[in-house]
């Protein structure tokens, strides 16, 4: 069964910005793209654990703040030629509110 948890109104995340959600499974980064899509990844870069929430977002990609690895927001996969993957979580947007699914 899916457990959807309310996170925050979309307006509390800047476009091309992100917020950190503290959870029992560690920090989760919620991203908002320029066209108002939302994505969620475990806030830990597969390279050396950099906080992805602090990166620069472009298209549906985030650049890690520590050493510049690029990861797809869609599935957390590193953009070639890099490799590695950050865990991704399901998110949805309903009536301007962001929901996160942890299971």
């Amino acid at each position, binding site marked *: 069964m899916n457990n959807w*948890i309310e996170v925050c109104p979309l307006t509390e995340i*800047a476009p091309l910005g992100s917020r950190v959600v503290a959870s029992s499974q560690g920090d989760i980064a919620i991203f908002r793209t*320029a066209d108002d899509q939302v994505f969620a990844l475990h806030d830990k870069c597969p390279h050396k654990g950099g*906080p992805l929430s602090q990166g*620069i977002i472009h298209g549906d990609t985030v650049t890690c703040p520590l050493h510049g690895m690029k990861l797809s927001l869609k599935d957390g996969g590193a953009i070639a030629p890099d490799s590695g993957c950050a865990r991704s979580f399901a998110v949805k947007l309903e009536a301007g509110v962001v929901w996160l699914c942890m299971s």
Partner: protein
Amino acid sequence: MKKQKLVVVGNGMAGIRAVEELLKLAPDLYDITVFGAEPHPNYNRILLSPVLAGEMTIQDIVLNPLEWYAEHNITLHVGKTVNKIDRTARKVIADDGSEESYDRMLIATGSTPFVPPIPGRELQGVISYRDIRDTDEMIAAASEYRHAVVIGGGLLGLEAANGLRSRGMDVTVVHLMPWLMERQLDRAAADMLKASLEARGLKFLMEKQTEALLRGSGDGAGDGSAHKPGRVAALRFKDGLEIPADLVVVAAGIRPNTALAESARLYCNRGIVVNDTMQTYDPRIYAVGECVAHRGIAYGLVAPLFEQAKVCANHLANFGIARYTGSVTSTKLKVTGIDLFSCGDFMGGNDGKGGSGGTDEIVLNDPSGGVYKKLVVRNDTLVGAVLYGDTSDGAWYFQLVKDGKNIHDVREHLMFGQNHVGDVGHAGQSSAAAMADDAEVCGCNGVCKGTIVKAIKSQGLFTLEDVRKYTKASSSCGSCTGLVEQILASTVGGAYTPSDSKDKPMCGCTDHSHGLVRQVIRAQHLTQIAATMHYLEWKTPDGCAACRPALNYYLISTWPGEAKDDPQSRFINERAHANIQNDGTFSVVPRMWGGLTTPAELRVIADVAEKYKVPTVKMTGGARIDLLGIKKEDLPGVWADLGAAGMVSGHAYGKSIRTVKTCVGAEHCRFGTQRSMAMGVKLERMLFGMWSPHKVKLAVSGCPRNCAEAGIKDIGVIGVDSGYELYVAGNGGIKTEVAQFLCKVKNDEEVMEYSAAFLQIYREEGFYLERTCHYVARVGLDHVKEAVVNDPAQRKALYERLLLALKDYEDPWAQAVKQPAVRREYEVIKIKEITAEVVS
């Protein structure tokens, strides 16, 4: 829309590169069909030499495997030679009778080896060196026969000879000219090369003309090799000398392969003649590669061919903007362990009219040390270089030649190379060839030489950017760039060209350079990132982590007060106003103006450190105190406490003003001539909140003893009895640069005005991530002096523009404390999780 048909004749390096470039620009425009005479997919021809030498295998050098063609829906005909073009019916016909019609065609048939009309050249065992078949034949011969003769002591001949020698053959190189590689080397370098090849067991016969190749008798006479009757057995020179030869490799040059084009009556003259868009005389037909003559030149190295491919793709994609205007080439012999480099007009003394051409030669010749360098200079520009033994500066010289840069200011130490002072981080290592495979090249990312070589070969990399992407080498601080370039050059030979520093694109999102973007932002009065991207036809919807921060800076520095700062286009440090650490926490460095503090301030810092359990408190190299390891959500609290005591944070993270270091100066020091502490504080206060292309550091010393180290700062101020000396463009970081003398001024007010004017011209003209030393190296100190020193009106205007830009700067830490919207950046969202127990 129905797709157009593109037929490519020639499945080699230039043709397929053009297809790759085309697919990047317009993946769906054409149905593409490729014909290739060889029975292989496109491979890296230049790596045939390491294959021959036994360092690689054929499988290693395939650039585009068959799956690549399939993935991109390209119809590939291997092993088929096109022998007719019907330009009226717009179709090509191959030797097996297959036909293909085209809307546009690309000819990339490469070149054919030139074999002089020597009697006996049709014998078995006489081959040239061009493709996989030749290479296989040489490898097979090496396991069966003993004596190899290579005719031609050029690049290709020597690589063949070296390969055959490493496969155990007894190899003699026959050369018509007095010295080897006469088209790439001068005599001194060639003689050193010859000596070292002799030491590896190669034999040379110079200034010898071959008269005939002689057939074997089939009786195994002579040295015992079993000669088949139709096979070559010996070689006879014009002077009567005969030497045994079971394998003869003719490497006497190449000729553009224009047979097909000529049969279709396309205009050819030493190659298929094309214009600057790579179009032949038939507008539907383009041509690239060695088969082409562009402005009368047919190139024989891949770097220029790749440039042609890029331009051609641009036109095939109907973009219609690129121009190919010719290339300067460089040469690097790919013989493992030999460092040799040449580029440009290295013979000098050649103005095309038989005159000396007004060139000077700067020569360093150390035969027993195994080093020879010659630089050819004309009118204060470097026009050519030959390096033997130590080629670490090859890429730098090549860049200078290509850019045609004025070298007047560096002429005296040009010979000693780019890194003759102050380069740190790779143990002074400067010769790539001598490095062991496990030697660390990139100290930042821990990348060894072997890893880089392997990536270059297996991934088919040709540029520094490629190597950075795949290996991370030279992608951080960049101090190993020279070494990486050398490794690249010695692995791919002349295929390597340093990227054009002048109009290199900002990043993959655009083809425009930093310079052009800055210009357009000013000329078109652009004030927003999105509008700028739109106007300049950015290729990505919202740029990337490289271009957005640069654009943001260009906008706010060009239109202060008008352009709005975009926090999402700033690196995290500048967005959060603190410095991110490797564990995701932050550091706070309270500003201590001029390095001065008070017991009260120290007390507040101590209190904050205790209250927020700061794990590390440290003196920085910038003469202030660093509080390291603070959680992001604690930052506003830390700032509130510091702010209450009147302290601001110190921009220890930004592309901005950092510190003004001072010495105690006339305030206390027995030698002090000027009040350096007061001067430093005034400067730091004036510059508070200044954003710049890169960070800016100043220092003020009270006398020439210079205890504040003003000689390696962006601006160094040194007090003397009669006033101050100003120095600019120093750097104490990756590569130490000593600051250059700008001028002498009389008093504190002038220090402020001149410093501000210098910083403002840098802010207006500098490229993002270019420090003052790089900016001044690019534009020249004279240009800066002209505006800042010689022209009082311009100096005042610059000064005022800086003050205007700084006028409205708001303390970002106070804002983060006070404004909820800003404060949100620091807050972690807490959620109510439904635990399994609750659900069940």
